[in-house]
């Protein structure tokens, strides 16, 4: 691998990694939001039971 090919490979790795990291971050946001909603509902239920 030489010349421009290596440059294209590096740029593709950088852009791909940034998008993958952002995808992971959105997944984390979604999961934590779901967990938050479940726990809030759970706390509401225990509150009612008391």
């Amino acid at each position, binding site marked *: 691998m030489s010349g421009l090919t290596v440059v294209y490979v590096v740029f593709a790795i*950088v852009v791909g*990694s*940034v998008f993958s990291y952002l995808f992971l971050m959105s997944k984390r946001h979604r999961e934590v939001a779901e967990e938050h909603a479940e726990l809030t509902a759970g706390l509401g239920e225990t509150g009612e039971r008391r």
Partner: protein
Amino acid sequence: MSLAEPAVIRQPGRRYGLGRLDMLGLVAFTLLAVTIGMALAYAPRELIQGEPQRIFYVHLPMALVAYLAFAIVFVGGILYLWKRRPVFDIVARSAAEIGIFFTTLVIISGGLWGRATWGTFWQWEPRLTFTFILWLIFVAYLMLRQAAQDRDRSARFASVLGIIGFLDVPLIFFAVYLWRGLHPEPAGMPQQMAITLFVGFAAFIALFAYLLIHRVSWDLKRERVEDLYFALEERESTT
């Protein structure tokens, strides 16, 4: 727990966050696209290294942003040890993760660039060795965060490790002046190269800010979830 959060972090994806944060992301990705375009079409071909030198326009800005991230870990660590406010620890550990992300990309892009110009992916020369040590220290930092159960204790240990780890950054920077290695000392460059590099710096700084805000916002939400678990456990134990 009181966490002082800027509006953009308090409600990401809602009233305040979406507009500003998306704008920052748009700016970052536009600048990244412009950097890549300029590196390929605007910057002149370097006479000695040829085409692979174009990697420089992402390699150097990513290294700078990684150092910036570890500087934030350093400052965040000091502020946490001093003030004991969780928000400093959250910012520090978010910056550490992004710092590792960019350091990994610096090592990969540097390895591929090195293979094309020096004929080797890796050599134990001073700057590369100190960069690898930096990467290891901050991987250990994140592992420590995962392993420890007690929040404050984990934050204190990690703060100390982050402060010590950052001391490696000046060694990386001055390695080319102190010891002979494969990395050259900084030299002047034609205006077109300098402009492309400047746009690259702007792109990666904007990208770093965008990622950091996202990461901090997630960590703040996670802290709230952990607090809810505590509250739920306490309620269940009293009923």
